[in-house]
């Protein structure tokens, strides 16, 4: 298979350097083969297929048409909407998540509260998916608990304007339910890193709570906060399951556009447009991740 190529190419480069253990024998390299073959086949090969396919027309010839189409009409709109949705929910998630993280970080580190919040955050942040969509139907869907309560007791019809739950505002609301928890998981180690001595030093020098956060806590937490913000953005941008379960008609965001291409609503001659959309997503996510890496590298220099 073609996937063998990247695998075989891999050991070539680094051997010349030679390691601390001396030059490994051929047999030593063989141990790594199953792992590299597997990852080559099921990760590298599909990825290459998408990245290369984005530059091919239906006959496999080189073209830039797929990519230029991304900047037009519904596809461009979907990217703009996806980025807006991700940025907005990343911001909401980061702010409220940071507050929640602070609230559990000042408590007992082995306490029940912290344990519960961290475990629940893990569930919602990483494994929510489809169940989250149904949680929303049960709460603010047409027949949801809150919808019914407001309709029967307060006289407010949540759906008076439109079926917002199944459009962008609904997605924003649902996404906060995995963005806030993700912030807790990502940000908690940073808050745990604040030493109580710093606070005491600030107090013994006559500082207030404000001076502490302004001159000590704030500056130290800003880089991890920004890093978490970027991670949340990438997370929302990549998310598919919740949106797919909630929105069955129309494709307001890029992942749902890709679904359209996979489930067969393909216009002749545009078979590889789905791959171009995929390439676009990888580029956006990589930019967010790359900026994060640069940011953390910068910080590592300052901290030293």
């Amino acid at each position, binding site marked *: 298979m073609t996937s063998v190529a990247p695998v075989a190419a*891999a050991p070539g480069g680094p051997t010349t350097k030679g390691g601390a253990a001396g030059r490994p024998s051929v047999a030593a390299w063989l141990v790594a083969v199953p792992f590299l073959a597997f990852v080559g086949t099921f990760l590298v090969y599909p990825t290459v297929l998408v990245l290369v396919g984005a530059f091919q027309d239906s006959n496999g010839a080189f073209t830039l048409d797929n990519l230029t189409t991304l900047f037009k009409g519904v596809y461009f709109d979907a990217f703009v909407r996806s980025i807006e949705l991700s940025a907005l929910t990343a911001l909401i998630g980061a702010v409220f998540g940071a507050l929640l993280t602070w609230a559990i970080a000042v408590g007992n580190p082995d306490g029940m509260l912290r344990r519960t919040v961290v475990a629940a955050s893990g569930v919602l942040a990483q494994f929510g998916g489809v169940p989250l969509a149904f949680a929303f139907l049960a709460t603010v869907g047409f027949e949801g608990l809150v919808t019914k309560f407001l309709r029967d007791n307060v006289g407010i019809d949540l759906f008076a304007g439109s079926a917002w739950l199944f459009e962008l505002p609904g997605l924003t609301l649902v996404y906060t339910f995995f963005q806030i928890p993700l912030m807790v998981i990502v940000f908690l180690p940073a808050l745990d890193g604040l030493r109580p001595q710093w606070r005491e030093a600030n107090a013994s020098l006559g500082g207030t709570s404000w001076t502490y956060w302004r001159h000590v806590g704030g500056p130290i937490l800003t880089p991890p906060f920004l890093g978490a913000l970027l991670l949340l953005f990438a997370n929302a941008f990549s998310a598919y399951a919740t949106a797919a*379960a909630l929105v069955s008609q129309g494709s307001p965001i890029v992942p749902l556009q890709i679904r359209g291409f996979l489930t067969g609503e393909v216009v002749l001659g545009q078979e590889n447009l789905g791959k171009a959309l995929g390439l676009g997503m990888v580029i956006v996510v990589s930019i967010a991740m790359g900026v994060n890496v640069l940011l953390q590298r910068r910080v590592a220099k300052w901290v030293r």
Partner: protein
Amino acid sequence: MGSLVKQRVLRTIILLVLGVYFILPLIAMAEFSTRGRNNTRSLESWTAIVDDEGLMEALVNSLLLSVTSAVLMLVLLVPTMAWIRLRLPQLQRLVEFLCLLPLAIPAIVLVVGMAPLYAWVNYFFGDSALTLTFAYTILVLPFAYRAVDAGLAAIDLKTLAEAARSLGASWFTVLWKVVVPNIRVALIGASLLSVALVLGEFTIASLLNFDTLQVQVNLLGKRNAGVSIAVSLLCLIFAFVLLFALSYVGQRRRQTVVEE
């Protein structure tokens, strides 16, 4: 003193507001799934879970997948990573890059490239949902890699391996009798994480047309929202119990280290 009181008030407000925000949907799920006809309460939706054959089959698929994926992940990752630390440091960066790569490639993009690949997989292995093991092992790599890497970093692998080798142990014995027992906590952590991830996976299964728990829950929701909501609530609770247990696994390690 004033600031301490302020802090406590602020903390209580945050916990209350966000607590309600996150618990309300759970209550709503419990309420919705116990609705009967004419404003009565009934457990119909919950008993329907067991009666639904499609759902049960999908659940079995998902449970089997969570085991096969965790096993394949351990078999591929543990020997390779231990070997790289011992004999092949040159591969360290490449393996780390490959393991973390799925974080930069959204599942929805990966599935675009996997669709043609799975035509071959299903040709060779049949079209059982269990073939998803391959895709899921890739998905859990970043999380598993971090857990196993932390486990290996915490032990003096080189000394342990050299001691065992000088006593005549084969490499397999080193791996099985020395490495694995020493990093078992990390391995349990990595496995629990992959189990939870696989049970919650929807993107790849649904777009490759395999019948897993989440795919069925989503399909069922179109006909009978009550049952889907009941199963969703069960999924969330099950994942919570799994991760809650995981937090104790980590702690026991901390305690034993202190005792030693």
